[in-house]
């Protein structure tokens, strides 16, 4: 009984610590472009800078745009896929990839769309009319 129990505890402790260690390694924190320079798999949060050129290039088969991170750094982001649906609508973007020089090469991109709940925007109501009642 005793050795079995000890063995069991060792197994549980070993499993849990290995799992947590691995889990800790596989997550990272959201960073800005400057911090991303030294990272391989950086998650950068920011918003699309729509004042600059953006679009899909047929020659290089890449979608590129400028993004402003939360600390105000603006970098060009290159994404090797087509422009995602609702890119323009997103009020926040998360790009996952790495920096090379001044360009961020994103392997993945997540779009956070505006909450429909509180920030109702008048422009949404273009078709709207006051009711007669």
């Amino acid at each position, binding site marked *: 009984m005793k050795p079995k129990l000890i063995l069991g505890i060792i197994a549980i402790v070993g499993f849990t610590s290995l799992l947590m260690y691995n889990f800790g390694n*596989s997550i990272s924190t959201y960073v800005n472009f400057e911090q991303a320079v030294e990272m391989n798999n950086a998650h950068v949060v920011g918003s699309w800078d729509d004042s600059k050129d953006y679009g899909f290039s047929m020659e290089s*088969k890449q979608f590129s745009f400028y993004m402003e991170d939360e600390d105000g750094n603006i970098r060009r982001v290159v994404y090797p896929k087509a422009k995602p649906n609702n890119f323009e*609508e997103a009020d926040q973007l998360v790009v996952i990839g790495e920096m090379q020089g001044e360009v961020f090469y994103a392997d993945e991109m997540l779009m956070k769309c505006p909450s429909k*709940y509180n920030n*109702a925007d008048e422009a949404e109501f273009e078709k709207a009319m006051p009711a007669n009642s």
Partner: protein
Amino acid sequence: MIKFFGEFFVNAAFLTSILAAIGYFVYSQREEKRYLKVSNWLFGIQGLFLLVASGLLLYIILTHQFNFYYVYNYTSSDLQLRYLISAFWGGQEGSFMLWILFSIFIGFGLMKWAREPYRGPVLFFLTLTQVFLFSMIAGIPFGDFTLGASPFRTLAEAMPNAPFLQSNPDFVPQDGKGLNDLLKSPWMMIHPPILFVGFAMMTVPYCFAMAALWKRKYNEWVGPALPWTLGANVALLTAIFLGGYWAYVTLSFGGYWAWDPVENASFVPWLLGTAGIHTMIIQRKSSTSQKASIVFAILAYVAIVYETFLTRSGVLSDSSVHSFVDLGLYNQLVVFMAAVTFIGLGLFIYRYKELPKQEKESKLLSREFMTFAGAMMLFLIGLVIILGTSSPIIGRLFVDNPTPPEVSFYNDWTMPMAMIAAIMTVLGQYLFWKRQDGESLAHDLTLPVALTCVVTLVSIFMGEVRNLYYMLFLLTAWFAVIGNVIIMIRLARKKPMLIGGTLSHVGFGVLLLGILASSAYNANLLDDATKRYNAAIKNGEITDEQGFRKTQTVDFLELELNEPKVINDKYRVTYEGYTLKNQERPGQQEYKIKFEPAGGEGQQFTLNPQVYPMLSSSTAQEIQWSVDPDVRSGLFSDIYLYVSGSSFVERKNEQAKQQGNNTASASGGMEDSVAVQKIKLERGDSTSVGPFDIVLRDYRQVEDQQLQDSTVVAVRAYIDIAQRGSDNSRVIDPLYSIYVENGQNWSYAPPQQIPEYNGTVQFSSIDPTTGEVELTFRGVKEEVEEEWVLLVAEEKPFISIVWFGTFLLMGGFSISIFRHWDRERKKS
């Protein structure tokens, strides 16, 4: 009025559910029949109220009452009936209602089938969970705090900060925001209801476990709880399958599984429920594992509530591809979760000392030990997935603002555990049906082990597997398939109803084979030039315009109209144009991509991926496009492709931009830039102008009443005009006429508009000697434009095996439901 009645009935149902819960509680304590009767009536009335409220919600959706936030937010007046109906569960509020609705039907079932002494407590806990769910949609204000988000709240209540509502609170929009185009799919109609059936059914084992603890009857509860748990399991599995299939065939996610929180939200309860099924089966057979059965029954439901919390509280909004709306239910969901967990585990700990202890240790080679170990494996897999999914919360232990874990975290942990589980399924089954010792087991296992080795070696050679880990994976998966098939055949000969468990285990093995084959051998379909280019990128030979080395390969397949490319030495692929399908969605294009075998032998086929503008989110200047992939499913491999760009889409975007500029700058100088082209054609000739293909079908003299009396001759040309690549050609018939006025001949030839285009065609002259007709095009680009399409195309091997494995699992569990249900029925 409807608002009042809607909220009234929701809250009346809320109140009755509280009363019913109290009634069931009293009944469980005192065991007097009248309390049960009253509570059952209250429960039924609650269901009736909820049914009326649901009817009202459906009514305001079907009658387009856009002053309601829910109706405005999820529907629009042009939505088809079936999507209007599915809008009922398209939002969070309605989906809570659906969940309770199913739960009520289950309640009626439990009234009939749950026997004493469990009946009272089971119904009490079921009603208690309904009370919590009702609180999510009650919409009762307490000062600044509102309890739940009512589906019947108005726009003004939902968006108090909107300025236009402050100035005019009676404002009613003429149309709603509509359903997201991606959700306009038949899957949207069936996937969520099945999921909620699963959620509702998974409450039942929780209720039974709690009843067992309450009534101190720790053994008999598994009998009636087992079929319900199996039912929940099948419902969840079906929902997971439908979700995966939906993601694969219509959402262009590129696969069936991505470890997204929403996917995990239905998978973890399934794993824990399945773990519970294992321990319950053991407990029923040999009265061990009582503690584990109770704990798993509790945890499976806690997992449902926890994952509901994760997906609906907004904590995951950064880390998921699904969009979440935070309805302000965070605190309520925390309370719900805490209550379910603490009541469940609290009662368990309170009774812990009394719980039956196992008299002697199970041997390593016993069905008790092996099945229990299998359940633990499932539990651990579930734990790993919960850990990963909880990264926004648990990750704070490590970093400040945690990202979700890399996908490899899930794969690295779950796959080895699945491999161990695969081996255990066979050992467990060999021990389950026969008492064995090491020697007899080794003897019995000789055949499956030998067969497994042969089959694994063959698949390693055939599939050219080089990776040691994959080889090991194959070995375990084949072992699960072959070992369980052998037992299944033996059982089927004795009594076919017994095969449920083995069939599920075969399904599990098949699923593992499918997962490996489909994920490890997924290949992009590329032509040779692109492959060479990608090889050069890998060698670091390509630099981009800024002088940096390109690291990202190009995974697109670009095709020009009617110019075939050979891909992967296997197919000759041709873009054969597109069809405009305005009747399904305005502006939808269906592309024709023909695949022929490159070698010349074999079947040819055509795939039809689609592209459509998302009208709800497009503006006049900016069209947002969405895609619908097409999949050719084969026995051995699927071809999966979607359009990520085309000349048609490009042109439409340009036009939209131009129109935007025109309206902005009131269109100056348009006439100057109009290109004028004259083209001479004979009957039957065809040519191309700008983006159009043109055929002069015929021209002939007409006698038109509307022409002036002085007309000498009038000729109409009949021209087929089609955008190149499109087979939707239109006929236009420009007129050329000569009339006499003041003794002079004049020609009259009005330019005719090209449909859906700014340019015009004019029948400008005719040469009587040669029969040649001259057409003048205005506003059409001079150079002939190339028609192209940009595809993302992948070959995905053995996806069918994944589905097949899933079906086997469903089949196995379903057979088990019938077996256990049948036995329970015979008992009474």
